[in-house]
Structures are given as C-alpha cells and as structure tokens.
C-alpha cells in the first residue's frame, strides 16, 4: 500500500509542477509584468513609477533561466509557490497569505454544510427514483432534475434573494456574522440556494449509478435467491454504487476550501471565493495566480485521496 501511495503522490507532484509551468506561461508570458503594472497604476503612469512598482513586486527580472540563471522570474515563481510565499496582492499590496487564512473559515462554514446536506438529500432521492425506475415517478424525477439543472445558478441566487429575502423577509439577503448564534441565519439562504441548484445534477448522477448497478447479473442472482426489491436496492446495489459515489465526494472535498464563488460573492460571505471575485474585478493577477495554484493543489490532493480511498473501499482494487 505504501508504494502505491508514494507512486500516486509522485505523479501528483509532477502534475503540480506542470500546473505551475502553465500558470507561469499564462501570467508572465501572455501578459508581461509591465502590463500588470500599468493595470495597477493606470495607463498614464510615467515609466519611473512603473519601474518602481516592478522593483517593489520583484517583477523586474528577465523571464527565463537562460537569460539570467540567478535571477529570473521562472525560478522565482517556482520557489515562491512551492514554499507558499505568495507575496502581496497586485491590487492593494496586502499579504495574500493573511487573506487566505482569514477566508478559509467562512468558506468552510458554507461549503461543509452544503456538502453534507447535499448528500443527505440527493442520495435518498435518487434511491427512490431508481427504485421506481420506468414508472412515472422515475420519469417525473428525471424531468424535474433536467429542469432544475437548466436554470442558471445566477437565477437561483437572484430569485432566492428576491423572493425569500425581500418579499418574504425570512432571512437576510446577504452578510456574515461569525458568531455561532447568528451564523445559521446568514448561511441559511446561501446553503438553501446551493442545495437547490445542485440537487438536480446530483440526483441524475446518482440515479444513473444506481440504475447501472441494478442491471448487473448479481442482482438477478439475488432475485433468484428470493430477495425482495428493497433489500436488493439497499444491500446489493447501494454497496456497489458507493464506489463511484465516494469518488465524487472525495473529489469535492478540496473545493470545500475554495468556497462556492458565486454564493459567497452574492451573499457577502468573506471567504476565499469572494476573495477570488475581488481579484478578478480589480485585475489582481498575483492573487488570481495564487488562487488557481491553490485550487490545483487541492484538486491533485483530492485525486490522490480518491485513488487511495478506492483501494480501501473496493475489494477488487489490489494496491500492490
């Protein structure tokens, strides 16, 4: 098992290095540092100001190692990213790492309940729909899922804010208060909206998994043994379906940290997601760069974790 984990981690490291290279291409070659400076200082800024800005942000070096082996942006980029030395925001010069630390908590407080509740709602729903496959309950269910999936998340958010926040006035439209008493009130609406916008796609996915497992030969064997449909669903089908379901869940864990971008921005939750949105709107390249990097790190971590969990859960996977 150890060798398997090491191998997966090794490949993951390789992928992260590749991601960093792509990021370098994107953020330093396609847009030159001078352009970033101009965006931060304004187009009319004099060359001296730009030069000063570049020096302050350590951008005043050649791009590639063959231009200057000791001081070049490529090595800087790798060194800094791998040591989590994220530097400061291009927009307001604040240390990025501080903002990340501050934003993690609020993001988690939104996404963890969302994930857990999402599972608690969609798995039983999809079991139900799969149990009644080919009947009108199934068709209705699938139709509702397609319907729910076709509505843009934007519309869900705006609609929910309007209806529940303004018209019915049940919950505040946006805002955040970290105290335990107030937290649920501010999270209720974003969690609800997140649930509704996601349930369509989730139920459809799980339903497909359940249906696929239901048509396998061992289900026919179980029926021939005299097992009832309910037992077949819960004992035989669900157990086999857990494997792809678990894969999906483990892959989603890294995104708990990133926060749901839209939900945070719309509902005023000061997490990593709104940080990213702010970076976009203020052309803050260094923050954007960092967020994409962190996102990728978490993604790779999630994939490795998924592979490992596969080995633990599926007896067919031998991790020699």
């Amino acid at each position: 098992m150890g060798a398997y984990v090491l191998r997966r981690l090794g490949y993951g490291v390789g992928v992260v290095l590749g991601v960093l290279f792509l990021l370098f291409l994107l953020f330093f070659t396609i847009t030159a540092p001078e352009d970033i400076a101009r965006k931060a200082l304004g187009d009319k800024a004099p060359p001296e100001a730009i030069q000063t800005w570049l020096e302050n942000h350590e951008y005043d070096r050649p791009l590639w190692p063959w231009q200057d082996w000791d001081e070049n942006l490529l090595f800087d980029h790798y060194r800094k990213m791998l040591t989590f030395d994220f530097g400061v925001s291009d927009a307001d010069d604040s240390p990025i790492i501080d903002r990340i630390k501050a934003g993690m908590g609020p993001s988690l407080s939104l996404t963890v309940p969302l994930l857990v509740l999402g599972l608690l709602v969609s798995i039983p729903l999809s079991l139900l729909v799969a149990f009644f496959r080919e009947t009108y309950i199934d068709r209705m269910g699938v139709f509702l899922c397609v319907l729910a999936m076709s509505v843009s998340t934007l519309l869900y958010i705006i609609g929910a804010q309007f209806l529940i926040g303004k018209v019915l006035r049940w919950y505040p439209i946006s805002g955040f208060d970290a105290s335990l008493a107030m937290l649920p009130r501010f999270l209720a609406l974003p969690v609800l909206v997140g649930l509704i916008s996601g349930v369509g796609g989730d139920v459809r996915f799980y339903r497909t998994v359940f249906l696929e497992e239901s048509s396998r030969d061992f289900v026919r064997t179980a029926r021939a043994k005299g097992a009832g449909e309910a037992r077949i669903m819960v004992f035989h089908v669900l157990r086999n379906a857990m494997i792809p379901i678990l894969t999906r869940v483990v892959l989603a864990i890294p995104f708990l940290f990133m926060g749901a971008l839209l939900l945070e921005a719309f509902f005023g939750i000061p997490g990593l997601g709104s940080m990213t949105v702010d970076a976009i709107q203020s052309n803050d390249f260094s923050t954007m760069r960092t967020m994409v990097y962190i996102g990728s790190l978490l993604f790779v971590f999630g994939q490795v974790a998924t592979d490992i969990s596969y080995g633990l859960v599926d007896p067919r996977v031998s991790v020699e």
Partner: protein
Amino acid sequence: MALLEVRDLRTAFPSKSGMTPVVDGVSFDLERGKVLALVGESGSGKSMTALSTLRLVPKPGRVTSGSVKLDGEELLSLPVTEMRRIRGGRIGMIFQEPMTCLNPVVRVGAQVAEAILLHESMSKADARSRARELFVEVGIPDPEERLDAYPHHLSGGLKQRVMIAMALSTRPEILIADEPTTALDVTVQAQILDLLRDLQQKRNAAILLITHDLGIVNELADRVAVMYAGRLVEMADRVSLLSDPLHPYTQGLLRSIPALSAPGEPLPEIPGVVPSPDQWPVGCRFSTRCPKRFEPCADQFPAELNPKLGRRVWCHAVAESAREGAS
C-alpha cells in the same frame, strides 16, 4: 402429477410492432428427482423459458400467457411475496457466468448465508456454519478460509461451486441450471458436471438443465427436450433421442457433432441461420432449413405427435411417414 408442469408458456418482449414472442407455447413436465435437459441453439428461447418459470424475465419482457404449476400450485398468478419464497426456497437457479453473478463487494460466505437466511430464521453464526458445510459438500477446499473470500479471489470453477452451494442451501426441490458449464474450462466443466450428478443423486433433486451442448446432455439428462425458435420440436428420453432422433433438426444437430463424423470428410452442418424472433417463418419454423420440407410445412405449424410412449415430436414429415407406416 409431475413436480413441475409447464403448459403453453408464452413470453414476449415489446417491440416496434407490438409484442414479439420469444417463448411461443412451450409445454413440458419435470418429474421428481429426474433431470430434464432443455436443448437448443442461442436464440431458441431456452433460457427465457427457464427464467419465465421463476417470473424472472427481465423487463420490459413478460410472461404473456400459460401455466406453470409447482406441485399443483399455479406460480404465474402468485402474489410477489409468495413467489419470493419459492425463489431460492423451493426452486433454486444457477446461471451461466459465475464471474458476474456474485456480488463483487460482499464475501462469498455472506452471500451463501444470505440465501439461507432469506428462507429460514437462524442466527448468523448458524447460517455461517451451514454455509461451511455446503462448501465442503460442493468440494471447495479450505472451506473456512474461503467463506471470507471475495468473488474475485476465486477461480471460475470455484465460483460456480459457490453458486451451486448457494442454490442448494435451502434444499430446493428443483434446481434450474442455465448453461452451468459454458463459461468454464473443459476440465473444470467435467468436475462441475460430476458434482451436479452427485448432488442430484444424493438429494434426489429435480434438475432443469439448459444447455446447447449435447455432450452434457448425454452425461446428465434423463429426458431431453429440443427447442427451436421459441417452440419445442422434439422431446424424448435420452437414450431414444440420441440413438433414434425423429425431428430433422435433432438429426441435424446430432450429425454435426465432430466426434460422430468421419475424419477427413467435411463436417456436416445445417444450412442457414436461426431466424430471430421478428423473422420467424409462418408454419413450421424450421421449414426454411429443413431437408425434409414439403407442402404443409410452410403453411401451418405441425401438431404434436406421440409416435411412441413418452416421445413427442412436432413434424409434418414424421406424421406423414407414420401415416404411411400405418396404412
């Protein structure tokens, strides 16, 4: 009264042109303690016949008419909860592909125990020891360790033994075996056949054996029924059928066995292919390929004929020669 009486069983699947039958009026008896082999090529409907008796026809197909009586009790109209007691309890079934027929994430011992616990109430420990005894009975070495094995740890032959143990765990009166050895190696085939024969004799169970392999028929069967295109064409005891086949299809099948043909000569074959259910010819379904075809064959399906005691055949040519013989 026979243990299992099937009368005029019809099973069909919906298609663009209505319901297409795959089993089209099959009737036979299975006697207590005897082995009946249902023989036919792929597409003849033999597997569907077996599944129909247990009402396990995969959706969207279903049994459309007929009667299946177990010890006088009509199975086709039983409520589902009663039918579940029959399945696995009084009638057990084993399938062709042991690879995929066992749940891959559950240990085999637990799967056998499940079969027991679905029909008898006992403690899990008791069910487990019963499973171990069954493993011994079906010849699985190291039964205690094997109880905790997952299906992918076992070879094909062992998996099939597990399936047999599972099916026989509740001492059913009938065992339906659908091509039990087709997916196995030849040497393993022989072992499984021996096992089935031993168990059948020891427990005096009736077996409905579905197969396309006449060699297996010779090893195990007491009576043989030959199916073609959804219907029976001949039925007799094993010896008579193999030595003196009456129906041209049966004759063709026997002629094409390699062991029975002379070396150096081309292997005899039945020209043409088995028609699919939406292309069944009118009249006798074998008429398009039959060497003995004559006028009535393309018009109407032959009526059942009983030329000798215990023999049934559906063939105009046989009827014709019987008439000529009598006159």
